[in-house]
């Protein structure tokens, strides 16, 4: 019976670690791993207890660093350390303070495997209860930390976790006279500190998320304001043109009435030809934007269009017919579009011809966005942009592409195409309209 419980302890311990890790980091752990990993650990223990201990210690850190290549290192370390620290804290808390209240002494816990097993089974429910009651949610940690906010708090948490874990394990291994009392104090003090750190981190995180959301809304509003200003200016210009036009028509009419071909010719050449060209002016491309259904997309395009004009870039916008709301999450779509346009602006400025072409296409099966820009070199080796995201860090385009591909991970149906030849760089995104939901 004891042997069975002894095995169950190891099993429950690893499973609660995995559950905590899964909950905090959001990485999906396939269900069979909840059997394989405990089994593997058990076998490892037979082979060498030290190796087994090291494996348990570094399992999550290793996983975080191997599987996830884009998060900041601090975040990975945090995810890697958190499960072990959290579970030891809970286990000790029960065995040092709670169970003795009911007359179950520490010695009894150590000798009775059933009680030990019970404690291990309580780890995840307790963890969940704590997280739930203080409303801690770290699932958005990636987004924020990778932008550099809150980095210091997280760093402090990491360092404190490492110190706690090592001092604690060291005191267990050395096993000197007052070890238990020391560990009890440590659990009380660090337990409090840990909780405070978590709440502090969580608060900072929520604040940052709200701030980001607000910023996003502000940017949207601003680009909409600038869009409506530009439209007003264009309208004014067309009104002026209409006025001229009527004048010209009447003077042509006088010419025709008096059969004076010379006047007609002159009026045509001096005025009409010029105004015709005026209407071809690229700023009238903005009027195409009325064909885009979504306001946020409209805002982004008009802002970038204005930016292009200021940089002296000839930007054209083509829209075949009404472009409806995209089939993917709007924020993701807008982010992708902004990155594509930013990259295009950056590259087009340096190129000789400075041209950007943006096109929105749509039919019943798919929506397509094409961003094309002129480049300095005759051809960019597209392969190098995809192959080593780390090595192109200095180059804006490479990094932007990495971000886009990260977002597209959620949308397996979307096709991303990157082409480059004869001084042109082109990105094409194809969004199928059927099956519109992301994997999220």
């Amino acid at each position, binding site marked *: 019976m004891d042997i069975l419980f002894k095995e169950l302890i190891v099993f429950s311990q690893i499973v609660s670690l995995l559950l905590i890790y899964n909950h905090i980091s959001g990485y999906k752990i396939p269900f069979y791993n909840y059997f394989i990993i405990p089994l593997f650990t058990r076998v490892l223990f037979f082979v060498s207890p030290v190796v087994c201990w090291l494996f348990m210690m570094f399992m999550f850190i290793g996983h975080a660093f191997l599987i996830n*290549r884009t998060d900041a290192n601090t975040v990975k370390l945090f995810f890697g350390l958190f499960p072990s620290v959290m579970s030891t804290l809970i286990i000790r808390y029960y065995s040092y303070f709670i169970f003795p209240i009911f007359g179950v002494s520490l010695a009894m816990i150590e000798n009775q495997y059933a009680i030990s097993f019970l404690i291990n089974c309580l780890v995840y429910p307790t963890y969940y209860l704590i997280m739930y009651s203080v409303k801690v949610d770290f699932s958005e940690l990636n987004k924020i930390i990778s932008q550099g906010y809150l980095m210091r708090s997280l760093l402090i948490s990491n360092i404190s976790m490492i110190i706690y874990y090592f001092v604690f394990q060291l005191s267990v291994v050395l096993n000197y006279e007052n070890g238990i009392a020391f560990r009890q104090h440590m659990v009380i003090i660090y337990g409090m500190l840990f909780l405070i750190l978590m709440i502090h981190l969580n608060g900072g995180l929520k604040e940052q998320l709200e701030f980001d959301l607000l910023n996003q809304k502000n940017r949207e509003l601003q680009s909409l304001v600038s869009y409506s200003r530009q439209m007003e200016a264009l309208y004014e210009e067309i009104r002026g043109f209409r006025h001229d036009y009527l004048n010209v028509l009447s003077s042509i009419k006088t010419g025709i009435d008096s059969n004076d071909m010379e006047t007609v010719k002159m009026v045509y050449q001096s005025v009409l030809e010029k105004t*015709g060209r005026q*209407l*071809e002016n690229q700023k*009238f491309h903005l009027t195409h934007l009325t064909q885009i259904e979504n306001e946020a997309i409209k805002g982004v395009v008009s802002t970038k269009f204005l930016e292009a004009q200021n940089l002296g870039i000839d930007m*054209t916008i*083509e*829209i*075949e*017919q009404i472009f409806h709301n995209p089939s993917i999450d709007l924020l993701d779509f807008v982010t992708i579009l902004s990155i594509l346009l930013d990259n295009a602006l950056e590259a087009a400025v340096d190129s000789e011809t400075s041209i950007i*072409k*943006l*096109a929105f*296409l749509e039919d019943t099966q798919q929506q*397509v966005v*094409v961003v*094309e820009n002129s480049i300095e070199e005759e*051809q960019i*080796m*597209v*392969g190098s*942009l*995809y192959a080593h995201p780390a090595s192109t860090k200095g180059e804006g385009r490479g990094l932007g592409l990495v971000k886009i*591909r*990260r977002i*597209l*991970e959620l949308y*397996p*149906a*979307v*096709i*991303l*195409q*990157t*082409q*480059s*030849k004869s001084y042109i760089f*082109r990105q*094409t995104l*194809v969004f*199928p309209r059927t*099956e519109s939901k992301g994997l999220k």
Partner: protein
Amino acid sequence: MLRVFVLEDDFFQQGRIESIIGKIISSHNIKAKPLKLFEKADQLLEEVKEQGSHQVFFLDIQIGQNRKEGLELAKKIRSRDPYATIIFTSTFTEFLPVIFEYRLAALDFIDKMLSNGDYANRIEAALLDAINKFGDGEKEDAFYFETAKSAIQVPFRKILFFETSPIVHKILLHTTDGISEFYGQLSKIENLDERLYRCNKSFVVNCENITFVEKSEGKVHFENGEYCYVSKLKQKKLLEKVKSFVVDLNGDI
């Protein structure tokens, strides 16, 4: 024999383009059927009976009140005949170059507002270009791959190799002019065509586009300077395959 179709609803422009094309055909001694002029897209479509790049279409984009009629017609022509030569004649503001290229691989766009001389030169260049294409009646076979989530189509001659993407469940397709990333598995792709060969755990190559295989390094090189890897065990088989395609090619010539 050249066949020219014109879609144009403006009387003045009809005369203009008809006389220009007539002059070009006689001055170059081009064998051509009489030019056919239409004011309505449906009528033109009924008259199209052949296929090939010798069918040249000059289409105005805006017909009457329909601002997209020329474009709609071009789509219909393209869906029946991928080789037809389509040229748009219109005013600048109606033309959408990127969209037209994506949808139709349109050959050219000629602005009606150009002066007579320039206008004639552009039409001449476009016509001669179409005639030059007669010779290579080479069929362009497309690689088509469909998953539950999406479908991708590329001309086969452009394919260099497929590679598993660092992003799970996605594949990178390297072509002569770029890369596409889409959802799929290599195991589903390798058997789609006999020219494709899985030469490594994470690569499927198009044997027709390999320039050389570097045995010592285990590298496969392609025309644009890109390379991928071949596993030791599969080198021999790959070389055999590459050779067989070279022989086939010689046989054809």
